[in-house]
């Protein structure tokens, strides 16, 4: 083997964007996530973007059925999954057709030639079944056509598996080959396979063989003369793990419940892309986590309200259409003034919309979407790691201020992953519930007697002398008894609004993500556009532009420093994956002439799109 090895040259790259694509049954997500974990373990900074169809098994070979997994890894800091790919790995013709525009000029294509037979070409819509692998149309790219199917089958000769099962190992062949190409070892994936197939020795053996065969193919094949090396990134010292946004959300919720010394009750109804939070939480019952798969979205939130009433932290999550169903119950939680966290993992809308694609179009729904005046704090996570921090903060605000809180994430960061230098539990703040143990007005208990922050006490059932009745009907100040008195209603509307407004008192001073404290242009982002905006802002600053970037975590109420900050720049640009919802809010609140940069394609911004939008404004 060493005789062949010396022929290969090794080139170093600072960062690489690779996109794996194939049929939704090809195991693409697994291949991508394994290669991600391998690189993260090696010490690269990484960012990923899984992109898959809504159908579990869309018609094979069609464009509709293409599943993709994009990974950006590097020896430098990485903020996005990358605008364009250096390498495109495609398992069939449809995968190539759907993704070729994402490949850089001169980029590398590794294609499974078996996926380019006449049927696949026809299904992918290649005119006259012209094969792009052989007709010269890909001459601008570095094309490697490999018969992965045949090579996998050859490697598995002698096993007792049927042809279909053998073909299911193709993704491991590809992964082995890519590991070779980027000078990575198979070890992490081997460990994964042992855990996954430990009880099925035949499948374990076959997948291991395919993985090794792919690696060896790189080593021995004459066609591949170059392998690449991406050195470890200069990440801050510490211990890391890889985490997706939905995992981050789940862990943040558990951590906060632990810090509040409360059981966590999670009521939810399965919905893409929020279900993984339910899956993750249901694995951690030993933390006092109770998961309840309710009969519908309304029952999901209502059960969480019941749990909070009982003294746990009630949590529910969904995506836009499910959140719409929860609206009435959010109003109830608002009136009851009990802790509750509602997570919206946003997807493309309206209605069923684009279930597996990403969007930020539920901001107004979160801020305004209730009957009557029912302001609820709204906060948003910007990266997979930030999902942890914001989920923690959502629980903290809910418990300490006796209010429902809405946390917005989206499909892009929920499914994306990045390396996380996880905190130690001792460094997380304690959360202090506003319990009451004895009557607060002589021998009487007034459930709506507020403290200086406007927060009412939390009296749990079972405590003698604190029996009280609460409900969604307008209530008298202090006593909570039913009241239809006109002046009292107005007073209560104000009291509840003030309580929520005062939550801004706890926020840390607003901080620029990058750029000068005043100048030409401020880019204001929120949520998952963070990576693309940060990358673009750093580049513009490097190019000498007077551009700063602020990323808003608290969408309602706003940070008190936001208004003054906006005034320090001549222009304000608000990139959003919607038609301009935050922009309108900023205009309404602060009377600034904020401009929008809007993309509503179910796909995240590229940093280049942000940069171009900013330049457009600067040069206007």
């Amino acid at each position: 083997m060493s005789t062949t090895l010396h022929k290969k040259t090794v080139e170093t790259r600072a960062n690489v964007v690779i996109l794996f694509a194939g049929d939704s049954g090809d195991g693409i997500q697994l291949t991508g996530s394994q290669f991600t974990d391998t690189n993260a373990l090696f010490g690269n900074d990484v960012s990923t973007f899984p992109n898959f169809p809504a159908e579990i098994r869309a018609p094979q070979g069609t464009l509709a059925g293409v599943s993709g997994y994009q990974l950006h890894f590097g020896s430098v800091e990485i903020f996005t999954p990358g605008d364009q790919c250096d390498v495109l790995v495609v398992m069939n013709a449809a995968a190539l057709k759907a993704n070729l525009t994402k490949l850089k000029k001169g980029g590398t294509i590794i294609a499974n030639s078996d996926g380019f037979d006449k049927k696949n070409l026809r299904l992918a819509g290649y005119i006259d079944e012209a094969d792009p692998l052989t007709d010269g149309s890909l001459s601008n790219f570095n094309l490697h056509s490999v018969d992965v199917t045949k090579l996998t089958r050859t490697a598995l000769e002698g096993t007792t598996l049927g042809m279909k099962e053998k073909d299911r190992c193709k993704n491991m062949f590809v992964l082995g080959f890519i590991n070779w190409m980027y000078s990575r070892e198979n070890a992490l994936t081997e460990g994964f396979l042992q855990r996954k197939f430990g009880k099925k020795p035949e499948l374990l053996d076959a997948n291991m063989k395919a993985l090794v065969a792919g690696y060896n193919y790189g080593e021995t094949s004459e066609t591949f003369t170059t392998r690449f090396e991406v050195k470890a990134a200069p990440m801050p010292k510490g211990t890391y793990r890889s985490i997706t946004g939905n995992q981050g959300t789940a862990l943040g919720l558990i951590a906060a419940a632990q810090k509040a010394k409360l059981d966590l009750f999670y009521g939810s109804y399965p919905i893409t892309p929020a279900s993984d939070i339910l899956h993750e939480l249901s694995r951690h019952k030993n933390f006092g986590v109770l998961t309840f798969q309710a009969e519908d979205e309304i029952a999901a939130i209502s059960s969480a309200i019941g749990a909070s009433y009982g003294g746990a932290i009630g949590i529910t999550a969904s995506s836009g259409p499910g959140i719409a169903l929860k609206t009435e119950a959010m109003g109830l939680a608002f009136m009851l003034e009990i802790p509750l966290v509602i997570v919206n993992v946003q997807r493309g809308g309206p209605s069923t919309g684009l279930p597996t694609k990403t969007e930020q179009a539920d901001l107004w729904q979160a801020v305004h979407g209730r009957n009557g005046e029912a302001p609820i704090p709204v906060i948003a996570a910007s990266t997979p790691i930030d999902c942890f921090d914001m989920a923690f903060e959502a629980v903290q605000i809910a418990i300490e201020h006796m209010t429902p809180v809405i946390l917005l994430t989206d499909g892009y960061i929920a499914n994306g992953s990045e390396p996380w230098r996880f905190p130690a539990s001792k460094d997380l703040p304690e959360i202090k519930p506003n319990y009451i143990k004895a009557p607060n007005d002589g021998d009487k208990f007034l459930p709506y007697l507020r403290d200086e922050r406007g927060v009412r006490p939390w009296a749990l059932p079972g405590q003698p002398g604190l029996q009280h009745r609460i409900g969604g009907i307008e209530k008298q100040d202090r006593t909570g008894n039913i009241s239809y008195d006109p002046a009292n209603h107005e007073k209560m509307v104000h009291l509840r609004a003030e309580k929520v407004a005062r939550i801004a008192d706890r926020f840390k001073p607003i901080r620029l993500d990058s750029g000068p404290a005043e100048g030409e242009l401020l880019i204001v982002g929120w949520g998952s556009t963070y990576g693309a905006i940060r990358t673009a802002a750093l580049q513009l600053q490097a190019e000498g532009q007077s551009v700063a970037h602020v990323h808003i975590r608290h969408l309602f109420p706003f940070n008190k420093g936001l208004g003054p900050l906006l005034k320090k720049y001549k222009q304000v640009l608000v990139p959003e994956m919607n038609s301009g919802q935050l922009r309108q809010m900023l205009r309404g609140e602060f009377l600034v002439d904020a401009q929008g940069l809007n993309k509503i394609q179910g796909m995240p911004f590229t940093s280049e799109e942000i940069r171009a939008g900013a330049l457009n404004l600067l040069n206007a």
Partner: protein
Amino acid sequence: MSTTNGTISAPEKVDFSSDQEIRWCPGCGDYSILKQVQTLLEQSGKKKEDVVFISGIGCSSRFPYYLDTYGLHGIHGRAPAIVSGLRSVRPELTVWMITGDGDALSIGGNHIIHLLRRNVDVNVLLFNNEIYGLTKGQYSPTSPEGAVTRSTPMGSTDHPFNPLALVKGADGTFIARSMDRDPKHMREVLSRADAHRGTSLVEIYQNCNVFNDGAFEIFTEKATKPVHTLFVEQGKPLTFANGTKGICIKEMRPRIIDIGPEFSPNDCWIHDERDNFKASILVRLFDDAHKEGAFPRPFGVFYVNDRPTHEDKMSAQVKLAKEKKGVGDLDALLKGEHTWTIG
């Protein structure tokens, strides 16, 4: 603690009543139910703070405000879900759920069936008045077909639910019926419901004297009650009409028989509330009472089943998880399964 509430409560009953003025219409059947519940609570020896009343929306759902226990007046139809969450985290509390025919069977239909199949431990009082009262007189999912109401001037075109057949279909574990005009019977049934672990559903025929007065007259008035009602008792034969008639099962079907020279009470079906099959028949005795040869309407406890409650199964999983994995270690959780160290 209590001051008002003089309309219905005898002095010794004040303990469980709240200081809130009762706002049901004078003459409403709800007063009778409230009184029986208060009496039962006082006799039960439970502490006020350990009892929670959860309701939805409707006339009946104002019930929690009138008791000096913990209470949550929820939103329309969702009380079963609120109860499910509360029971999951506080299984030691006694929880009652107050609902009506619209709240439970129309807007909350999807929740009540799931509450029943999960068998959450709660006493559900379904006030059935066959009308929408709080919205002023529209037909409900239990109004008979043809019912002329404010929203159906030409008569309702909807076929009504048979509530207890629905409950049986959803595998309810305690199924009973009573009526506002028979306080003693109601108290006995409520007491049984309270003792049962699991979802105890009691349908209570409740007169709305404003919008649907007399809907259950045929079952409640002295003159017609004996012939049209059947009060079932454990181990006793199904007889009615002052013992002159009975019900037997012949060729898999219930039949009315005359007690006399030909048949004795021993020929009747003996009520067994543990019998799943018989309960399925009992809940189906739902004839239009005004029709010739109609079966009498049964009252009492139809069915009891002791399968485990949802919250017990949930707690058992948490306990098992703690035994197997140990009580959650937050640092281990944050660390996860794979880590790497830099520097």
